[in-house]
C-alpha cells in the first residue's frame, strides 16, 4: 500500500480555533494558506452528522469586508453582479459574483445588509485579490475595511442546528428568515451575528463572532451532545451533493458566470456592473463550454481526471470537482464540457487511472433534502 501525504509548510496561517482542532485530534492540512481541520472522527460520520443532526465547521479562514458610507450601495451595484435592490431590507443577504473587465469571475461572495453597512464574505484564497480589486475602484465617500483577522466564523448546519442556536441565543431571540442575518447575545455573554446561510444544503446558520470569542463559542456548541465537529472534507462532500460551486474548482479567473452555470446571480434586468456586457453577450451567443454535473455509479471521479464523450478518442474536458457521495453512494463530479453533446442524459466516460468507466450527465442537484 502506498499513499502520498501532503507536507505541512511553516508559513501557514491558523484560525482562532486551531488549538481546539488539535485538542479534538483533527487531521490538519493546508487549505487556502491556512492549516485547517480536514476531518475529526471521520469524513463519512461527519457528513452523516451534518445531514442527520448538527455539524459545526470552522470557516474562520473566510474573508470578511465591511463597507459603509454614502454611495456604498451604488459602488457595490457597480462591482457585483446581483441586484442589491433585492436586499434593501436590513438583515437581508444575497449570493453574488465579482467579475473583472473580461467578465471572468474574481470571486463568489455573500453580501449581507447589516443596516447602514454591508458585510461581504469572501473566499480565503481570494481575500487579498478581492480587497485590492475593491480598493482600486472604491470612491472616497465609501469606507472599505478588511475585518477578517478580528472576525471568526463558525457554520452550524443540520436539521437540529436552529434548535441549538436558539437555546444559546435565549428566548428573546428570533431566528432570521432564510438568507437573512440578525444579532444575538449567545449565553448572555457572546455578541454574535447570526446568518441563516450555509454551504451544506441543510438548514442552519453561520455565526460571526470576534476572534477572541471563537474558542468559547466552539466549546458552547460542542457541549450539546447532538453537535459534531466537521472538517473541510465533509464540507466539500456536503456542498458537492447539493451542487454549490467551489471557487478554484468549479469556477476561476478563466470562466464567466454563464459558463459556470451562475447566470441566475446575474439578473437580466441589471446592467452597468463590471463584466455585464460579457454576460449579456454570452446570453445571446452561448459559450462553447459549460459546467456540467456528472454521475458515475461505479467509480470515484477525482479532480483532474479526463472526461470523454461516449466513444470519443480525445478527452472533452477534465473533472473540476469530484468525489464519492456519502449520501448517494455513487461518484459525483463537475466538469467543463462542450455545451453541445453534454446535455443532461448524455453518456460519457471518465479515465480512472488508465481505465475508462461510464457515467452520465445529470441535472443538478445530485441530492435534494426531503
Amino acid at each position, binding site marked *: *500500500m*502506498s*499513499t502520498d501525504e501532503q507536507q505541512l509548510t511553516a508559513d501557514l496561517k491558523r484560525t482562532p480555533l486551531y488549538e481546539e482542532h488539535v485538542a479534538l485530534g483533527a487531521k490538519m492540512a493546508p487549505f487556502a494558506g491556512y492549516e485547517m481541520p*480536514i*476531518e475529526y472522527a*471521520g*469524513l*463519512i*460520520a461527519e457528513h452523516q452528522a451534518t445531514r442527520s443532526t448538527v455539524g459545526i465547521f470552522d470557516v474562520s479562514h473566510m474573508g470578511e469586508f465591511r463597507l459603509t458610507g454614502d454611495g456604498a450601495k451604488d459602488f457595490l451595484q457597480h462591482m457585483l453582479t446581483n441586484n442589491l435592490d433585492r436586499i434593501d431590507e436590513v438583515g437581508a443577504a444575497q449570493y453574488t459574483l465579482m467579475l473583472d473587465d473580461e467578465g471572468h469571475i474574481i470571486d463568489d461572495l455573500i453580501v449581507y445588509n447589516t443596516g447602514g453597512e454591508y458585510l461581504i464574505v469572501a473566499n480565503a484564497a481570494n481575500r487579498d485579490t478581492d480587497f485590492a480589486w475593491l480598493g482600486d475602484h472604491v470612491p472616497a465617500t465609501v469606507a472599505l475595511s478588511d475585518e477578517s483577522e478580528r472576525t471568526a466564523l463558525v457554520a452550524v448546519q443540520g436539521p437540529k442546528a436552529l434548535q441549538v442556536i436558539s437555546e444559546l441565543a435565549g428566548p428573546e431571540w428570533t431566528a432570521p428568515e432564510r438568507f437573512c442575518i440578525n444579532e444575538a447575545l449567545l449565553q448572555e455573554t457572546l455578541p454574535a451575528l447570526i446568518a441563516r446561510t450555509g454551504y451544506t444544503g441543510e438548514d442552519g446558520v453561520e455565526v460571526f463572532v470576534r476572534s477572541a470569542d471563537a474558542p468559547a463559542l466552539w466549546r458552547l456548541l460542542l457541549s450539546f451532545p447532538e453537535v459534531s465537529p466537521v472538517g473541510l*472534507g465533509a464540507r466539500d*462532500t456536503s456542498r458537492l451533493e447539493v451542487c454549490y460551486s467551489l471557487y478554484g474548482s468549479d469556477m476561476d479567473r478563466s470562466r464567466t458566470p454563464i459558463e459556470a452555470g451562475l447566470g441566475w446571480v446575474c439578473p437580466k434586468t441589471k446592467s452597468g456592473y463590471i463584466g455585464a456586457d460579457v454576460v449579456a453577450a454570452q446570453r445571446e451567443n452561448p459559450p462553447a463550454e459549460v459546467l456540467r454535473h456528472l454521475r458515475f455509479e461505479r*467509480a*470515484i471521479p*477525482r479532480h483532474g481526471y479526463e472526461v470523454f464523450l461516449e466513444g470519443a478518442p480525445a478527452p472533452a474536458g477534465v473533472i473540476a470537482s469530484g*468525489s*464519492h457521495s*456519502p449520501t448517494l453512494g455513487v461518484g459525483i463530479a463537475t466538469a467543463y464540457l462542450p455545451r453541445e453533446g453534454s446535455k443532461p442524459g448524455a453518456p460519457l466516460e471518465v479515465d480512472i*487511472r488508465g481505465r475508462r468507466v461510464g457515467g452520465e450527465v445529470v441535472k443538478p442537484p445530485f441530492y435534494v433534502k426531503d
Partner: protein
Amino acid sequence: MSTPDELYYTNDHEWVRIESDSATVGITDFAQDQLGGLVFVNLPAPGEGFVAGEVFGEVESVKSVSELLAPLAGEVTEVNAELEGAPETINNDPYGAGWIIKIKLSDPAQVGDLLDADAYASVIA
C-alpha cells in the same frame, strides 16, 4: 493499533496469513486507520498473476486512492467480493472479514522477506 502475532507484514502495511502454499492478504489496522473510511475497492480477477511488489488493486476513501501491492508472487485464487458492496468491512475488521485476496504462492521462500509482528510494530511505532 493491533498487529496479531500469527501474521506476517510488509512495510507497505499489508498483512499476510500463510497456510501451506496459500496466502490471505489484507491491509493492517494501522493502514485502515490512516486511510479513514473506505468507500470503494478495485479488486483483481481470480487467475490474475502478480510479482511481489506489483499493484494488484486499489482502495479508496472519499479523499484518497491507495494502491494495494502484492506482498508475494503468485496467482489470485479468490477475492473477497463482499468488499465491493461493503468496503467499510476493511475498517471494521481488517484482519478478519476485511481480507482482500487469496494467492497461490509461486515462490513460498519469499515469505522469509516479510516482517513478523514485532518488526512491523516497530515500523508503525
